[in-house]
């Protein structure tokens, strides 16, 4: 294969940064969540790329774990969003600042 592994790493960096921007900028809680998923995906991509580079299948294993954790996180997170929405009739995260010190 001619595509260097470095290219995949760069792609993953870009996606990660985009995800991070999403987390910071979007006010819709669901979108924030989706941005987090994007970040996780970028990390996964990097893991797979490094696994390829160093011929170590452990990277794939960790992708697997990350996916599992992401699934759990999504389940809980969405349940929380639903609960918050039921309570506040809004999923704008700027509405949720009861925890201010």
């Amino acid at each position, binding site marked *: 294969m001619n595509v260097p592994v470095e290219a995949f790493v760069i792609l993953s960096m870009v996606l990660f940064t985009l995800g991070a921007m999403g987390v910071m900028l979007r006010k819709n809680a669901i979108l924030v969540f989706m941005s987090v998923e994007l970040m996780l995906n970028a990390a996964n991509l990097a893991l797979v790329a490094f696994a390829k580079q160093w011929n170590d299948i452990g990277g794939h294993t960790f992708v697997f774990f990350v996916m599992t954790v992401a699934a759990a996180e999504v389940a809980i997170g969405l349940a929380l969003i639903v609960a918050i929405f039921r309570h506040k009739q809004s999923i704008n*995260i700027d509405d949720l600042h009861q925890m201010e010190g």
Partner: protein
Amino acid sequence: MHTETYPQLIPLVILIPALGAFINIFWGSKLTERVSGLIGITAAVLTFIISVLIFSHLNGHHGTGSVINPVIFQTWLRIDSIGLDIPWQFRVDPLTAVMLLVVTGVGSLIHIYSMGYMHGDKKFSRFFAYLNLFMMFMLLLVTSNNFLMLFVGWEGVGVMSYLLIGFNWDKGGALGWKNSNAARKAMIVNRVGDFGVLMAIFMIFWTFGTLTFYQPGETANVCYAREVNNLGACAEESHSEGEAAAAEGETAAAEGDHSEGETVAEAEGDHSEGEAAAAEGETVAEAEGDHSEGETAEGEGDHSEGETAAAEGDHSEGETAEGEGGHGGEPVVLADVDNSKFASYTDLGVFGQTAHYMSLEEGSPERLVQFGTLALDFKTVLFIIVLFLLLGVAGKSAQIPLFVWLPDAMAGPTPVSALMHAATMVTAGVFLLIRSNVFLDYVPEARLVIAIIGSVTALMAGFIALGQWDIKRVLAFSTVSQLGFMVAAVGLGAYVAALFHLATHAVFKALLFLGSGSVIHGVEHGHHHVHAHGNGPGHGHGNGPDDHHDAHDEHVDEAFDPQDMRNMGGLASRMPITYWTYLFGTFALAGLPFFAGFWSKDEILADAFHEALEGHLLLDNLAGYIVLGLLLVAAGFTAFYMWRQVQMVFHGDPRTEAAASAPESSAWMTIPLLVLAFFSFTVGFVNVPKYTPIFSGFMGIQDYEFKHFLESAIPSVTLKESLAFNTPLALLAVVIAFSAIALSHSIYGGNKAVQGRRDPLHVNRSTRQMWSLANARLYWDEIYFRLIENPYNRLSKFLYEVVDWRFLHDYFHDSVLKAGYDSMGKLLAKPFDLGIIDGTVNGVGALVRLLSGRVRVVQTGYVRVYAVILLLGVVAVLLIMLLPLLQVQAGS
């Protein structure tokens, strides 16, 4: 009959009463009176059956004792570091068997009697639980194979005695106090005695390294075992002081030993030389008196022949044949019986070791016992041990000076008085002495002390009994007196006589107590009857038979005392069964001919007479004289006060309405009375002396059956000659008894028994002094009060008022400690607690508040801001991590 397995039943003797008590303790309140009573009775009767089985086994095996190791209790107490290993073992031998029969037999009857006597009592099941527990501990005491197990039983019966004396502690007012005080008195006085037993046990363990009586396989009486197994008598090698029991069992001693034995015999004036000579057919210069020699020769010949031939001996026909059948035909060799199979004498029990030590030369280093730096001769140690034991015996068996608790113990219910304080528990001390007979054999000095204490107690208690009004108190002092007889007999070395008297006394004294209980019960009932009528039906008492038990509770507040003989009289016609059985008991106790007491008391007197005239040692002679003299007088007292009691209770006219309307007791109570009355007459025939007129060979009665049965457990029996019936002495005793009765009858006969609630002896000016002395119980209690109780109380009061309150509380605590604490507390409170500790804590709090006030601004609560800050941190951390990389890059 195969009876080998019967001794294995012995743990059941403990377990069955324990089970009965267990049921009654935990479920007694839910059970009906009848069920819980039947449980108790069943447990007692079952143990009696087992006792009979064990007895039948021993009777068929020449009483060969065995040691039973129950499966569940292989080791009991074990401390390896000091070599303490006390197994839980039972000893089954004739001594145990006799005690088993006495305890379970009399115990069973008293259980049955209690069913009637305690009817209606609200603590009925508890009473039976206590009785069962008492049986358990008493049986543990008599079946134990070491001093510690014996002591467990000893203390156990003590506790049960305490609980049962104070059984009616909840009676209202003074009576309840009287009951519980009596229980406490018994407990405290017995502690003094128990101290002696404990000391003796400690010394025994120190001296012997073990507490076991006999190890498994050990033969207690080697000579007897040799005789019955056709291994030759050991009369030759066993002279002085009954060392026949010596566990050495040397067989080669036949030749050299003879001359040696002679010298010893001469030096010590040993009488048994004659016996040995007679058996050998030689004439020895030292033989004493043709009478005894001839008798001995004949007796010995007849005796040993019968044993050895096993064919036509006068008493051993059936037994020997049966015994040998039981052995399964295996030949018995000498090594089986003479304890030579034990590698070392230290493997033997305490008695075997005693014989070994005493066979050593006096002054040899082995005979010395080290107590720290103090080295005592073995015999001295033994003397001290026996004296300590005697202290315990004085407590348990109510001897001078510790007898004072027993009369008070009559506060307990009458069956308890009969079972524990007459028939069984109080004889534990005598049993302990008989069990330790090997010890006693070697210390005639101690025996003299025992004999004196016993006979003085007998006389003193008999005297006090003359002046008592309380029907049970008379019997209590009578018990003390009779126990004195037994102890005196032990002091003479007449263990069989002591045990014989113990057994017969158990029967007839139980009978007397139960009879008195029946009388009291009747009088109470009669009183209640009268009382109920007097108050009319409106009082709430019905006329029904069920009501009488309320009398136990209701009449305490009235002046009427149902136990006072002055309130009785003429009961013979009201209570005929009680009367006749009581009369049997009285005759037995008084020693009228052919009643049980006659045989047993007479044997003690005969032994005393024998020791006095023919004792080997001066000490024995002395003991014999003292015992004989005192006991003859005491026997006279016995007959006198018993007849006085019969007169007061049963004869004459009723002195109160209660007595006039007293009914006969129920069958539960009268049947045991009848059974006991029957045995009070017959039990004496088990140990008829030889050459007794009329009875020798009469109706299959064998002479000294009891003695032969016990022979395997008491070594000295084999060595002493069996006494012939001493006709002059017996006549003398009978004459004394009859004349005492006659005298008593002349004083108390008819309606003269009580004159205006005063005793005729008190009315009579010449005897008033003496009677008052007896009535006041020789001021024993007062003396104890002056000498011990009062000073003790004063000391307590001093310690309590002055030392504890004034010094410790008022001064030390309140002034010194409190002031110190106060000043220190003030010091700590102001500068230290408030300043440093509070300051620190508050300072930390204030600091946190100050800082957090600044920081909390950051916590806006907006998630996106947090995300930005988080990412800022991430970038920062990344850059910091990458800094070295940059430096490398710059460097290269």
